[in-house]
Each structure stands twice: as structure tokens, then as C-alpha cells.
């Protein structure tokens, strides 16, 4: 029987991990992730979870350690945040290149300097090219559900790619909400066993000794990287399969890599990711009550990037109105250019323009907000939609200012 609990995002992640039965967990505490590994330690202590739990000396060691365990063919878990994720960066590429099916939780937090412990998405966005699948949760429930699904995706032999499950620091990791915790039998039926089957690729097979983590010269290296890319692109299908199967069995979630909200007839569309989507939805309901046709696309998976889904949702044949302007709201900036998510979205739009531009592409505006944990208010989101309306009507909006920092007036 599933049970309803009152949990924080961190605690929901710990529950999702417990139900997934990893064999080895490595932990190094960092705010705002610490509670995840503390709860898991308690679960190991109370024998709710049969796992080896190691308190290691650094994040770099944490990811290296679970890589070693995964090479032995067992399910693992670790979690980190911000500076810790940066310190792991070398091992992020190592693990994805080695095709180890790891799952890691990241509490999205700003990066030093200046030193700041609060939430934004600079950390995971900076490592978008590390070869990890990246998914962003909006709620504690989705966090729990995504951990379970992440194991199913990562370990799928077609995928064999590690998955990073991102939660907004504090806003999601530390706030409480009612969360349905599934029962163990249902999760056991959903997930493969935590010991990979004999002969699972890329793990030690004691009957067929081989060397893992090889070197490759210029002749072979590109082939390895091509296959890594090809399989990451193709992972969209297994992700949909897993999401769809999860929704069928557990009665929530979906197969979508992008989740639309009142978008089919929206003229002004905001694209965002993570927990701020909830506030945007509230604003959309209010603006709709005033007669404005506004909508939301919440990106769940940033890798593999769902370009085709995005183009279908913005320009597809099922739309009931043309999109007049697009906003991208994100908590990061690729210094010297634009927000990281805007770069992703615009690249997908360019491909659309090449394929079949209906009547030119709509204007796109990039809103950079919530850096270093700054709140993003309803009023600010309403002002963003105002900007989009002006951009749509080509009415007094400056296209040159396509990147707009929101909330700077509060900064010194």
C-alpha cells in the first residue's frame, strides 16, 4: 500500500532512493543536499535499506567510489550540490564516457564567487555537456518519482548513461508537501533488480576478464563519443517508455519531456524549468482570467534536449493559435552570451526555421532571474508577460535587449 507522507524535497528523494534499493551509497555533506544523505544513513541504520553507506572525504571521491561499485554491476546512489558538483566535474565526464548507469541527485545552488548557498541553476547548466541525462523536478512528489524512473532510464541497456536529478535548492529541497510514497512491491515490479544481470555491458564479468575504462587514440576516440551522443539522443524513447509505464502503474507523471500548461491556444508562451513553474502557472491562470492568452512549457529533460517536442508544442498542427512571442525564464547565465536554456531553445528554433518557417519565427526574450536564491515574484512574472506582449506586437520593445536580468534593482 502506498502511503501519504508530509515530506521535504530532500526527504522525498531519500524515499525514492530507499525504494530503488541501491547497494552502495557514497556521501559528502553540502548545503542544501545534506538531509538526503542523512535520511539515507538513518534508513541503512534502521535496516529499512540494505546498502553499504560510506561517508567519504570529498565529492570527487563520492562519484569515483560509486563509479567503482557500478563497474562491479550494482546499483548505486550519491548526491551533491553546487561546488560539490563542480568538484565532481572530472568524474562526471569519466562516468558518462564509461557508460556507467549512475543516478545522482543535485540540489541546484549558485556557484562561488561570491560565495552563496542559495538556489539557482548555474551548477547543473554549467555541466550540460558532461554526458549526463539531466532532469529537473518541480515538486517533492516528482522528485521521488524521478529518482525511481532515473534508475529505469539509466540502466536500460540502450541508454547506459548516468542521470542527474535536479531539485531547486531550498525552494524544493527544504519545503514540505504531501507526498505519496509508493509501496516496495510495486517499485520492485517496476525496476529491474539492483544487481545488474550477468554480462551487463561495461561491468566486470569474472568469467570474461576484460579491462574497463580504456584509452582511445585519435582513430577510435571520435567513435566512442559519437555512440555516446547517438545513444543520448535515442534515450528520449526509453525516457518516454519509462515515464509512460510509471504513469500507468503509479497513476501520476507522464511520458512528456516537456510538460505544457494551457499552451495549445496561447499567444505568449513562457518556457521554464524546475519549481518556479508553479508560480508561473498561477500567474497564467490570473492573466487568463483577464483575457490574455498565455501559456507555459515546463522543460523536464534538458538532456537529451527535446527539440522536436518543443517545435511541435510551439508550431505543430494541433495548435489552435499561432505563438506570437516566447519567453525563457531561467536561473543561470552563460556569461558573455545568454541564459543556458535560451541557447538550447533558440538552437531548436533555428532548426525549425530551416525546416518550415511558417511566417518567420516569433520574437524570443530571455529572462534571467532568481540568481543566488533571489525570489522570483508574481509581479516580476506578470512584467515578463507584458514584455512578451510588447514584443509580439512589435510595440515599443527593444529586440536588441533579448536578454533581460530581472531583480537587479535589489542588488548593490
Amino acid at each position, binding site marked *: 500500500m502506498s502511503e501519504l507522507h508530509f515530506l521535504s524535497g530532500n526527504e522525498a528523494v531519500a524515499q525514492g532512493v530507499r525504494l530503488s534499493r541501491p547497494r552502495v551509497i557514497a*556521501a*559528502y*555533506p*553540502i*548545503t542544501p543536499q*545534506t538531509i538526503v*544523505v*542523512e535520511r539515507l*544513513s*538513518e534508513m541503512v*541504520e534502521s535496516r529499512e535499506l540494505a546498502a553499504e*553507506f560510506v*561517508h567519504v*572525504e*570529498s*565529492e570527487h571521491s563520492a562519484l569515483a567510489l560509486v563509479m567503482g561499485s557500478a563497474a562491479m554491476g550494482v546499483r548505486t546512489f550519491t548526491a551533491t550540490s553546487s*561546488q560539490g558538483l563542480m*568538484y565532481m566535474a572530472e568524474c562526471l565526464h569519466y562516468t558518462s564516457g564509461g557508460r556507467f548507469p549512475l543516478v545522482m541527485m543535485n540540489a541546484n545552488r549558485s556557484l*562561488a564567487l561570491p*560565495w552563496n548557498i542559495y538556489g539557482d541553476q548555474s551548477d547543473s547548466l554549467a555541466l550540460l555537456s558532461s554526458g549526463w541525462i539531466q532532469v529537473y523536478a518541480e515538486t517533492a512528489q516528482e522528485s521521488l518519482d524521478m529518482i525511481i524512473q532515473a534508475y529505469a532510464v539509466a540502466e536500460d541497456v540502450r541508454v547506459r548513461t548516468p542521470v542527474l536529478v535536479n531539485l531547486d535548492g531550498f525552494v524544493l529541497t527544504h519545503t514540505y508537501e504531501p507526498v505519496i510514497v509508493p509501496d516496495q512491491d510495486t517499485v520492485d515490479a517496476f525496476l529491474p533488480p539492483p544487481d545488474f544481470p550477468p554480462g551487463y555491458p561495461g561491468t566486470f564479468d569474472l568469467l570474461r576478464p576484460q579491462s574497463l575504462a580504456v584509452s582511445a587514440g585519435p582513430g577510435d576516440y571520435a567513435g566512442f563519443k559519437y555512440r555516446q551522443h547517438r545513444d543520448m539522443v535515442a534515450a528520449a524513447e526509453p525516457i518516454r517508455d519509462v515515464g509512460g509505464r510509471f504513469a500507468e502503474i503509479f497513476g501520476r507523471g507522464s511520458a512528456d519531456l516537456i510538460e505544457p500548461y494551457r499552451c495549445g491556444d496561447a499567444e505568449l508562451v513562457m518556457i521554464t524549468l524546475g519549481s518556479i513553474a508553479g508560480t508561473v502557472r498561477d500567474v497564467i491562470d490570473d492573466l487568463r482570467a483577464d483575457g490574455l492568452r498565455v501559456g507555459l512549457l515546463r522543460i523536464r529533460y534538458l538532456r537529451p534536449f527535446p527539440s522536436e517536442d518543443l517545435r511541435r508544442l510551439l508550431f505543430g498542427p494541433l495548435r489552435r493559435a499561432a505563438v506570437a512571442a516566447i519567453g525563457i525564464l531561467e536561473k543561470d547565465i552563460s556569461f558573455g552570451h545568454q541564459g543556458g536554456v535560451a541557447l538550447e531553445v533558440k538552437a531548436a528554433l533555428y532548426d525549425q526555421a530551416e525546416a518550415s518557417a511558417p511566417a518567420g519565427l516569433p520574437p524570443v526574450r530571455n529572462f534571467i532571474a532568481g540568481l543566488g536564491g533571489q525570489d522570483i515574484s508574481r509581479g516580476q512574472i506578470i512584467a515578463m508577460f507584458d514584455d512578451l506582449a510588447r514584443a509580439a506586437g512589435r510595440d515599443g520593445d527593444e529586440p536588441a535587449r533579448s536578454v533581460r536580468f530581472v531583480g537587479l534593482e535589489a542588488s548593490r
Partner: protein
Amino acid sequence: MTIQSPLTVQDFKSDVKPIWCPGCGDHAVLLAVTKALVELNTPREQIAFISGIGCSSRIPAYTNVYGFHGVHGRALAIAAGVKLARPDLTVLVAGGDGDGLSIGGNHFMHACRRNVDMTYVIMDNEVYGMTKGQASPTTAPDWCNSKLTPHGTGVSPVEPVRLALAAGANFIARGFAGNPNDVARLIVEGVHHPGFSFIQVLSPCVTYRPEQREWKQSVHAGQDQPPQLVAEAMHRLASDDGFTTGVLFAGNRPAFMPERKVTASFADIEKKFAS
């Protein structure tokens, strides 16, 4: 030239109020550092104070010298960079047992053997305080009050002074936050001693390790004459109970930075502005 009155402890404290818990040993270490700076009688602009990440690593912000709040575990590497670029500066480094011996443990070993002329204070409370009470590398194996290690770590703790000696530190001392005058004296000696000076300060965490209040019963002064030979220091430290205070080793290896040189005098700088 105007005659300046000597600087006081207050001159070396900044306006920032420490956010350490009441009763934390780190308050006394801050006092000891400022007393040492008064004793050293070095102008404030001639001192660089580098730290890592953690409760104790906030200490440079509470002083009135050049401060640098470094990357977690990397204080020693940053400090070496400071000293190599400006050999004329007095370089102090501080941080906790977690920062310096766990995530930064590798740097500790290599800073000892490189022997750059600087003074490193580890404020050791055998716990990660900032993330709310997890075991550090100096935590006893049977301490089971951490949620991450409810049965204790079960692994041998690092003994920082022995590690420093084995790795080649040129000056090794231990102090206790309960005796800030003694810690101040050790810092002064460490700064005067050429090469890499390491000072472990037992600095109780009253929040997560309240039993450390009893440390004041355990600490005892070591012998007056510190050993100058590694073998002798090693022999003494082999039977050390972890509470011997004072200078534990004073070696004579040449420092990585043999000569102190001033890169620019104030007169030169003034000339530049005048032209």
C-alpha cells in the same frame, strides 16, 4: 614621517560580528590570532590571511588584514600562490579539520613537503560544524552522534601533527583554545620560524561536541625544549595522547622561499602616482 602608536587587538578585529555559536572555541582562536598580530607588530597591509570553507574558515572576515575566503579544501594552494607572488607578506592560513584534512587533505601533505614560508592553523573540533555535525577525519572512530555514521566511523582518525611531521613540515605545534595567550605565542613562533609552520588548535564545538568542554582537563604542556630532529619528534609523538600543547617540532629545513624581498617600496609607489 609620523610616529604611529602600536596597534592593539581591536585594530586587528573587523566590524563584522562572528556568527559562531556562543562558547565556540573559534572565538578564542580569533582572539589569539589578533594578539599574535599585535605581538608580531607587522603593519596590517603586510599580512594576508587565507582560509577554506567551514565554520572556522570564516575567521579572515573577522580580522582587519587582507583576507581571502578560499575554495573548500584549497586554502593552502591559494596561500602558496599568495606567498610566491608577494614573498614580503606574512601569510597566515586557517581552516577546520574537515576542510584541511578531508577534502583538502592532499594539499596538506604537499604544503608540508614544499615548505613554503607560511603559518597554517587548523582549528580542530573533530566535526563538520557548518553542515550540522558529521564526522571529520579527526573524529574518534566510536563517536556515534552523527546521522551519517550512527555506529561511529569505525576508521582510524588522522593525527594531524604526526601527519605533518611525516610529510615534512618545518614547525609543528599544538595549542588549546582555552588558553589563547599560549596559542598566540605559538602563532608568533610559527610565523618567525622559516618554512611551513603547522599549528593544531584544539577548538571545542560546544554545539555538536559538547563533551569537548572537558578538554580543558586533558590538555597539558609539553617539554620546554622542542625536538629539532625528526626522529626524536617522531619518538615523542608516538606516545602522544593528543593533548600535549606547545611546540612539538622545530626543524631546520630551508624554506621553499629562501629570501624575502620587497617587490615595491611605498616610496616607489608614491612616485608612480606623482608622475
